[in-house]
């Protein structure tokens, strides 16, 4: 009975690890989608309504997809330090502090670079920078979706299979 319970626990644990892997892949896709939608909103606000950056960030910290709101909330909070440091530094710190996004280094770098242009240049140049970043993120998103479709089953299968394998070995 104890052996059976142990086997169930081992399979359960490895299965959970597999499921977490699947969730992580799905989450990555959601975060990238969230960032792309937020950048669209940001572009519209800046280009169509000339909304000041503080208001854009404040709006996004409330209405952007939930998984990316933290980034904009941190940037909004950081705006109180404007004058002590530049907007670029505020934005860079917000990106660096957004661990929950689990961005890969290249993605974090792309997002950080946007801060060099945001609020600093005229509408056209900002729109170009946001558009460029969006296109890069869309490419990354497509790869992330392919990765999710390809690896989800693999994660699930290996999670359970490695549990069964371990049980067989241990028994």
């Amino acid at each position, binding site marked *: 009975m104890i052996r059976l319970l142990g086997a169930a626990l081992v399979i359960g644990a490895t299965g959970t690890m597999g499921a977490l892997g699947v969730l992580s892949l799905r989450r990555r896709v959601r975060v990238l989608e969230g960032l792309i939608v937020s950048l669209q909103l940001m572009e519209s606000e800046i280009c169509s309504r000339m909304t000041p950056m*503080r208001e854009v960030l404040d709006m996004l910290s409330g209405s952007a997809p939930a998984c990316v709101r933290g980034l904009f909330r941190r940037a909004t909070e950081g705006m109180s330090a404007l*004058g002590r440091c530049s907007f670029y530094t505020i934005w860079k710190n917000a990106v660096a502090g957004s661990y929950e996004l689990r961005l890969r280094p290249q993605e974090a770098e792309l997002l950080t670079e946007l801060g060099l242009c945001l*609020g*600093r240049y005229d509408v056209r140049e900002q729109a170009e920078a946001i558009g460029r970043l969006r296109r890069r993120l869309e490419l990354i998103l497509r790869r992330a979706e392919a990765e999710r479709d390809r690896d989800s089953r693999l994660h699930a299968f290996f999670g359970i299979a490695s549990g069964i394998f371990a049980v067989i070995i241990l028994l």
Partner: protein
Amino acid sequence: MTAGDSMVERFDGAVLLLPYKLRERARSVVRSDRVRAEEIRLRVGRPMSVLLPEGELTLGGEAVTARDLELLVEIATGASVHSSGQWLKDGFIPCRGGCRVGLCGSVYSSGGEVTGFNSFSSASIRIAREHRGIADAILPGLFRDGALASTLIVAPPGAGKTTLLRELVRRIASPSQSRPGLRVGLCDERGELAAMRGGVAGLDVGELTDVLDGCPKAQGALMLLRTMNPQVIAMDEITSPEDMAAINFARNCGVSLLATAHAGGLSDLLSRPLYRDVAGVFDNCVTVENRNGRRIINLQKGGAA
């Protein structure tokens, strides 16, 4: 709160537009100078200074850097150059509290029009001032048969035109025992006259004043005429043929006008082609001079000519 306290508060508000490293130096200015300060001036490679009625007071300390001016612009625009685009192209940024940051540097242009700045070399933070009572001496003379006669305030830059205009608007739009207030439509293109914030005027412009801010003067005057039924239209700094056209139009609609123009004096003003029609539009001319830190206001009645 006394008038002095209010001026110190305005100075301190202007200091908040400076990058952090320059704020302490600006805060070291003694109270008597803070009360009288008209501008905070920054020039790359030189220490910051404060403009007082008698001249500039250098604050010493570290020289201002180009990076400081970039930070100043970032603070003044709230890291939103796109929101201040047109103003920035004209070389200034209106800020909270009625302050105005004027900029100088290398501009880039396209099709003969300035499109922005490549770099900044100097900046001046103009502090909005309220001088209650400065219009007392001339105010009764501006009325003819109980109605306000159209009045043009003429003075060189920095003499106090805007301050006088604001005070006149406040007095005219506030009912008193001697006369009822008039409805004033205030066209505040640069946001310096009323310092609107969330629909509330940061500077007192009277009870019966309707403020249209951020709008080009020519367009604003027409909008006010169509929408707010003003008895008086007030605007700062007539500088373009469009402004003159709007003024003529408003005058023909039976509205009294209060406006300002840059000039050394009335003869200087009338020698310029743009202002040739002024004589037919304005009934009074007020000149403001700054002599050794003292403001001298003269009213010339019966036509600006």
